[in-house]
């Protein structure tokens, strides 16, 4: 019973959405269900946010390792809630958008979340370098192809690519590294992308069917729970 109801819900909702593609009167269903999803997500946040509070208050209470940082997290969370829900410092009244420029909410976002986010993002530059050092090694044929393709593209994006191969006659201009780089992007790269994308499409169709038909129920605790 505890599995039957969820499985039935999944089956009905999934089938309805598939069928709605072919039946115009059901065309609005997708939008309705998406709205429902958005609303459910807010309710879920009460659980998520509650969990965040619980974890950090617990850490603080028990004086676990690094409990001091929990104070910072809790303070940040509370400040943002207060600033946003009561629209502190918003130009105009409560009716203006919560993220109107000039509001406390917007200012904190702009001077804390934005720089932190883009710095975290910029760490990629370092990790790209360390990953290339380690991963691009001619261990076998596959790895060698990976290495060669990456190397040619990298060369093609620097002035050296042209310098190295400027002597190649124009009738073989494809072999000039910048052109070769573009060719690799447009042909073999595109082919691989296509195969991956078609495969993904089939994988999604098959997995969705398994879920809708209730064959796949590992997320409900497997077959005998």
């Amino acid at each position, binding site marked *: 019973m505890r599995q039957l109801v969820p499985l039935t819900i999944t089956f009905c909702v999934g089938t309805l959405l598939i069928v709605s593609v072919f039946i115009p009167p059901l065309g609005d269903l997708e939008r309705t269900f998406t709205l429902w999803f958005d609303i459910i997500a807010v309710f879920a946040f009460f659980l998520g946010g509650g969990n965040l509070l619980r974890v950090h208050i617990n850490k603080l209470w028990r004086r676990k390792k690094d409990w001091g940082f929990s104070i910072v997290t809790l303070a940040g969370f509370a400040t943002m809630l207060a600033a946003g829900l009561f629209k502190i410092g918003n130009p105009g009244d409560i009716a203006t958008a919560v993220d109107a420029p000039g509001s406390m909410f917007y200012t904190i976002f702009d001077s804390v979340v934005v720089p932190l986010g883009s710095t975290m993002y910029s760490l990629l530059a370092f990790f790209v370098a360390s*990953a290339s050092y380690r991963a691009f090694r001619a261990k076998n044929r596959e790895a060698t192809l*990976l290495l060669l393709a990456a190397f040619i593209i990298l060369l093609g994006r620097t002035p050296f690519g042209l310098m190295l191969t400027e002597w190649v006659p124009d009738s073989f201009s494809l072999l000039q590294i910048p052109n070769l780089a573009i060719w690799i992007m447009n042909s073999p790269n595109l082919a691989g992308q296509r195969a991956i994308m078609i495969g*993904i499409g*089939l994988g999604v169709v*098959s997995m969705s069917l398994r*879920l809708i038909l209730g064959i796949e129920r*590992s997320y409900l*605790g497997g077959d005998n729970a």
Partner: protein
Amino acid sequence: MTFHRGRTSSLASGFSARLIIVIVVIAFLAAPAMWSRADGPDIVLAGSDSALVSLAPVTSLVAADNTYDNGDALRLTWVPSIDDRLIDSKIIGYRVYRLAGTGEPEAIADLPPGSNQYLDETVLRDSVYSYYVSTLSERAEFPSNRTAVISPQREWINLDRGYLFLIALAIAGAVIYYVTVAKRGKKLFVRKIAGLEAIDDAVGRATEMGRPVLFIPGIHDMDDVQTLAALTILGRVSRTIADYESKIFMPVARSLVMTAGREVIKSSYQAAGRPDAYSDDMVNYITDEQFGYVAAVDGIMVREKPATVFLLGAFFAESLILAETGNSVGAIQIAGTARPAQLPFFIAACDFTLIGEELFAASAYLSGEPRQLGSLKGQDVGKVIAMVVIMIGVISLTFAEAWKIEFMQDILDRLSVVFSTN
């Protein structure tokens, strides 16, 4: 549960697969006859005289039901004013008027010169309307004849999507067919997938080292199929973890995923007969913010030093940040995503990577259950269909272009109709 991986194959299943393909291909090529329709009104050039002072109105104005909708649109077509074809035309545009029932005319749209159609999506089903279109000059309007009254019709089936339906039926049908075949006890072969074979060892390693397993289900919410795929795999992985008595930790970026993840792990622990070992603390919500989440997970990685890291689901720029940090703490990493742009980073920094389709196949493969393996076989039929269509298309297009062979062009036209998506 029995495992049939890597052993049996069968002649009969190969034959029926081929049969399905032949039938499907024939169906595609033959089907258009079944619902070919004549589109649009006949185009008749209006022979009205082009006066110098006044502008000619539009002609052949027809209001028709917009097909395959819920009865909420009407389509107008007309032949533009003959004056519209002059080089220094005095026409500045057209104005569409609508009369609802017996009411007053109401201007509903202004259109630029050269327009010859309009889709009115503001109508109600079961109401009647008629229309006329005025040709506009700087100073005056020159109305056309009114259309007959019409009311929008609701269609119950979208015949425009007939081919989409056929293709869906073919692929989904193949999946369901093999699921039933497998259910009847026929053994199906599925090849080894290295990344999935490694899961047991990876979890075992965590147990031996006494360190936790870290499971990252991507940064998208439950409305992404990749997250669902990650959760189905979580079901299998957490079952193994429960059996091995390892520890699992799963920080998430969405509250819904937290709830779902807890449900999955809890059920797995129950199924493994160790409900007491489960705790809600295994799954924690961090923050919805992409890089805030990444900052926290990076911190968890260097502090907890997990022995095994799973990175399965929807990943974006953070893929490499997470994978490199995991690598730096010496974890075995098994990654998988359906985002082609992020796969190279996982290939570079992880021990095993599930490439696209393998991510979605993983749970079925791990279950080893016949019906699930059957669905993988069904997927392969989809691949065969794709390959056959590509072959036929490429050959006919090449011949049609190079040697102008009409028959090939026909095949091609048919294929492009079949595979057009709207």
